């Protein structure tokens, strides 16, 4: 008979509809494998839709009565999660509330100042840091001493030094191979590397991940085999910022996927660098079973892209472009990005509340941005209306 864990841990994500959180899968898989927590900590992940009312998020958390609850925060779900944290704090005053993710990492101290319900922020890659924090809490030690954690000490907010990036990504147990992640058709995605070679001023992909680190090919191939052969998924995705990062990598992934594609497995919503997709690369994507790709430099305006340090081959982009769907929206200024730091310098005004949508620029007024949003919606609808 299993002993009751001393420490009940709830992990909460609010995802796009139909998806599960890979980030929390990693965090749970790492913590479960940590020998110091075996038999002491029990885990439960709540994968909820971003549209769920914070009252019901708090209701679900209250039902678990956890000692520690961790929320994965992005710009899209931050406001809802902050609401849920306030409710959880009222309902479960002794529960230790932790948040992590790209939205809070660069502004950890500001988050704790503004959100008194939250006890700690896990900054950067969360796997190792969260497990260390759990061990620290079990031992009754000081959370603000854990590398990568920002936490309260009485009335103070203290940030411990950053934790170095995980050198060997294979050290993170696979949430798929360990059975941590419950799979959903078309809702699973595999990560093959972290970081991004680009340094686009608006994006958080490369933020804090100075170099590219890859999972081993054996690990990726094992995950693909598990999803398709063992679990029988017919559709999934890769979450990599650039699927065609290198030609050689594209050839490898095509080779991995091709036999599955012949058996009817498809890949959806793959992000590609479209300027580097010629006929041969397009043929490879087809052989890999790719049914939809996403691409976009966020703007086609030369000056805007220059401001964002985004190289852009306009001629190649236009030549290769015949998309089935256009997606348009105003830009969001994400914490920690280059644009966030240079907003005043480049004349950007944005909503300080998540998701930090641009309110006006030096050249576009707030009313014109709203008009452009309506125009963009009409353009997207017109574009999609085809035989």
């Amino acid at each position, binding site marked *: 008979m299993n002993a009751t864990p001393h420490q009940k841990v709830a992990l909460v994500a609010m995802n796009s509809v139909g998806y599960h959180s890979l980030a929390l899968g990693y965090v749970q898989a790492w913590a479960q494998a940590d020998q110091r927590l075996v038999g002491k900590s029990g885990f439960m992940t709540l994968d909820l839709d971003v549209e769920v009312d914070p009252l019901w998020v708090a209701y679900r958390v209250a039902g678990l009565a956890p000692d520690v609850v961790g929320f994965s925060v992005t710009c899209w779900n931050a406001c809802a999660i902050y609401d849920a944290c306030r409710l959880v704090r009222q309902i479960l005053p002794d529960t230790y509330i932790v948040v992590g993710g790209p939205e809070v990492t660069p502004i950890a101290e500001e988050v704790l100042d503004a959100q008194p319900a939250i006890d700690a922020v896990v900054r950067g890659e969360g796997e190792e840091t969260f497990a260390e924090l759990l061990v620290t809490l079990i031992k009754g030690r000081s959370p603000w001493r854990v590398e990568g954690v920002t936490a309260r000490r009485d009335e103070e907010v203290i940030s411990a030094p950053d934790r170095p990036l995980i050198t060997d990504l294979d050290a993170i147990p696979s949430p798929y191979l360990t059975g941590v992640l419950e799979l959903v058709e078309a809702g699973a995605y595999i990560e093959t590397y972290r970081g991004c070679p680009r340094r686009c001023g608006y994006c958080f992909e490369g933020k804090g991940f100075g170099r590219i680190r890859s999972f081993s090919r054996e690990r990726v191939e094992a995950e693909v085999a598990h999803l398709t052969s063992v679990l029988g998924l017919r559709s999934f995705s890769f979450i990599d910022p650039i699927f065609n990062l290198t030609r050689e990598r594209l050839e490898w992934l095509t080779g991995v996927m091709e036999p599955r594609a012949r058996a009817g497995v498809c890949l959806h919503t793959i992000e590609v660098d479209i300027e580097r997709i010629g006929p041969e690369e397009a043929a490879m994507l087809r052989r890999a079973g790719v049914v939809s790709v996403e691409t976009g430099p966020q703007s086609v305006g030369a000056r805007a892209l220059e401001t964002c340090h985004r190289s852009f081959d306009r001629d190649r982009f236009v030549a290769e472009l015949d998309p089935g769907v256009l997606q348009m929206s105003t830009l969001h200024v994400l914490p920690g990005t280059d644009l966030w730091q240079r907003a005043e310098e480049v004349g950007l005004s944005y909503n300080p509340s998540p998701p930090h949508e641009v309110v006006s620029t030096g050249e576009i007024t707030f009313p*014109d941005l*709203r*008009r452009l949003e*309506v125009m963009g919606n*009409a353009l997207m*609808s*017109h574009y999609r*209306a085809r*035989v």
Partner: protein
Amino acid sequence: MVYGSEKATWRRVAGVLAQAAASAPTYRHAAEIMPIIDEALAVSSGAGVFFLGPEPLEHPEIRQLITGAVSAGTQRIGVRTSGRPLADASSADELISAGVRVFEVSLLGSCSETHDPLAGAEGSFAAAAIGVRAVLDAAEARGVRVVVRGRLGVCRHTLQDLPAAVRRFAEMRVTSIVLACPGTLESRRFAEWIAAACDTGTVNRVWVAVSDLALETLGDKALHAVDVITMNEAG
């Protein structure tokens, strides 16, 4: 694609439409129109085909023309209509099935009281509203994406009703609206109402484009000179 006169000023529009309804219009035959479509697609393979005229859906060969345009390879086919023909049972569904994806419905007012007298046909506003609904329902039933676009003729008779008409179109769930201004418009007199119509569209999240009006007349609404469809007349 024009098979009738589009040159009439909007001062004459009510009369033109009434005349069209009262007398049999003359049509260009499909055999004459198809080469124009082929030629347009040869120049630009991605070109769309838009059928215009007093009432293209009453063209005796309209189904043949639509089928021909699809066969020729066009991916976007639109019609500009009063909306009345769409209210006939199964008409909307047949057109969607044939390949029409953009339905531009012309109105001259926000309700029967303002639209019908200008259109010269009692019941035409109600029929248009039924037609718009029929298109959206048929598209949803087929799982097909279509666009219903509103078109409002701007003249001294329609001017003060423009904001209400935009609102009415928004309630009908159109995707965008074009305010068609005649070249002879006395800009300053009209600017205030056109600006109000544009703002009505924005707050109802429907794009309002203004055609054929000087940018300076639009003032701080200059963005509304941009349409989401560009049309080059081919014949």
